[in-house]
């Protein structure tokens, strides 16, 4: 298939269609409204359902209800809207249902701003809702990668009967890049015996996150963590960029920030200074072993983020003292420039 030039938001919408999603619920918010705009037009063309809810709170619970039927369900929002969905996400995780969320992150806290940020790392990775649960969190750094991750996100949600979060930022949503829609290799998925899709000729199923018997609730928690351990074994994704022996500094960065760091690394290379980049693609499960390995023998590790310092905590617990870990971040919608990252790295050389 020929490459198309598409805006990240539109490409995310099209990828959902290609992945077989026919149920999309949304509430508009900058900088992701083009996903809704695109799917409002596209869903009816494929016989799917586009529904704009009255609020993100409602949308989250529509996702919960629709997911219970075993259908592929999807929503997109941006930071404040995703906050409103946290209750539903916790319920979906507790009830063990598959659903895909995409967060095109903007600056916070509160209503914040509308420009790119990565300050929802903790919310996505450490659990923004209540209770012991995890989402599988995937962070694209190009429009093509946003498409590729979207195409597998629904399979992964089905594989683990668990919510999956695609975390982009305003830049990924707004920029246009060439994309190709390639079908990923089919994944062996378990039958959806749990789906509440009519019980004619079989026993009814009950979907719930309420377990008043503490031992039964403990058992549910243990089941969840069996899945999370399996994710840690099977779903760690990352990119090593210029990671080699002789790296003076290792950068850890994801999403838009990572591609800015690639420009920095190319400039250092031209000056004969070797800097590596470990780019986590799965933020949960975090590529701890890969970060640790890449940090061997470097003078310092630098976590670069559009936050006040969130992922750096996972970098620290991965590096475990092998090298000092530094942090550089810009926030509020300010995107770090290659020049200012260069200055930070020079301090570490």
């Amino acid at each position: 298939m020929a490459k198309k030039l598409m805006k990240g938001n539109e490409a995310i919408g099209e990828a959902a269609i290609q992945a077989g999603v026919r149920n999309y619920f949304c509430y508009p918010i900058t900088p992701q409204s083009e996903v809704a705009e695109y799917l409002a037009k596209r869903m009816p063309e494929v016989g799917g359902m586009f529904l704009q809810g009255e609020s993100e709170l409602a949308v989250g619970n529509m996702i919960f209800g629709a997911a219970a039927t075993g259908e592929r369900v999807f929503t997109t929002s941006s930071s404040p809207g995703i906050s409103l969905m946290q209750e539903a996400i916790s319920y979906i995780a507790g009830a063990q249902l598959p659903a895909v969320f995409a967060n095109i992150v903007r600056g916070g806290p509160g209503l914040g701003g509308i420009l790119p940020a990565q300050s929802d790392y903790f919310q996505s990775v450490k659990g923004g809702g209540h209770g012991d649960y995890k989402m599988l969190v995937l962070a694209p750094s190009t429009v093509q990668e946003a498409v590729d991750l979207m195409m597998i996100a629904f399979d992964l949600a089905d594989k683990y009967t668990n919510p999956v979060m695609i975390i982009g930022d305003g830049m990924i949503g707004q920029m246009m890049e060439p994309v190709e829609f390639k079908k990923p290799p089919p994944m062996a998925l378990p039958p959806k015996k749990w789906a509440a899709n009519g019980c004619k000729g079989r026993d009814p199923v009950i979907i719930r996150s309420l377990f008043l018997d503490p031992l039964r609730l403990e058992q549910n928690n243990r089941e969840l963590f069996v899945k999370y351990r399996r994710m840690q074994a099977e779903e760690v994704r990352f990119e090593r960029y210029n990671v080699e022996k002789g790296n003076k500094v290792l950068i850890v960065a994801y999403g838009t920030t990572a591609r800015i760091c690639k420009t920095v690394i190319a400039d250092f290379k031209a000056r004969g200074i070797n800097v590596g980049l470990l780019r986590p693609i799965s933020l949960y499960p975090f590529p701890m072993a890969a970060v640790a390995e890449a940090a061997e023998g470097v003078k310092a590790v630098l976590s670069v983020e559009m936050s006040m310092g969130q992922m750096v905590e996972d970098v620290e617990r991965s590096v475990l003292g092998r090298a000092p870990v530094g942090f550089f971040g810009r926030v509020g919608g300010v995107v770090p420039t290659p020049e200012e990252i260069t200055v930070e790295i020079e301090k570490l050389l």
Partner: protein
Amino acid sequence: MQKEVTFAGFGGQGIMSIGQFVAYTGMEEGSEVVWLPSYGPEMRGGTAYCTVVVSDRPIGSPIIQNPQYAVVMNRPSFDKFEPTIKPGGLIVINSSLIDVKSRRTDIDQLGVPANEIAIKHGLPRSANIAMLGAFVGRSGIIKSNNLKKFIEKKFGSRREVLESNMKILEEGLGIAENSQ
């Protein structure tokens, strides 16, 4: 080789569109491309700008502080982006609306009476196409033949609009050629 350009003007002048035309054509030529709009809290009639990067290798940072080229269609855009151009770069100025020239001696500049050209050919809204022609003709960022093919595809369903746009484009390309 990576080439970067900022297109800037009033909202409604077609800045975003001509940036996309360059990105599309670059992609068709097999280059890596990124088109990045400004999407801050803008208002109708306010300034709009976008950045396009065309490269023979994967593009790192999509944010360009100092582009090689700038195409500016109004005075505020001239004031904002003229100082940011890399030495040795180029600024294409809409001389219909901008009554100053760059005083920099380390960049090339090209004035285009874009609004007059567009009005002359009966499509006042296509001043951006004159700017595009002059910019592509002078910078060589994409091949003018490929750009023409793209314009043909883009406006092909409306014969008259296509013909007028082609004339406007040719006149822009001509300005670039004749001022060499």
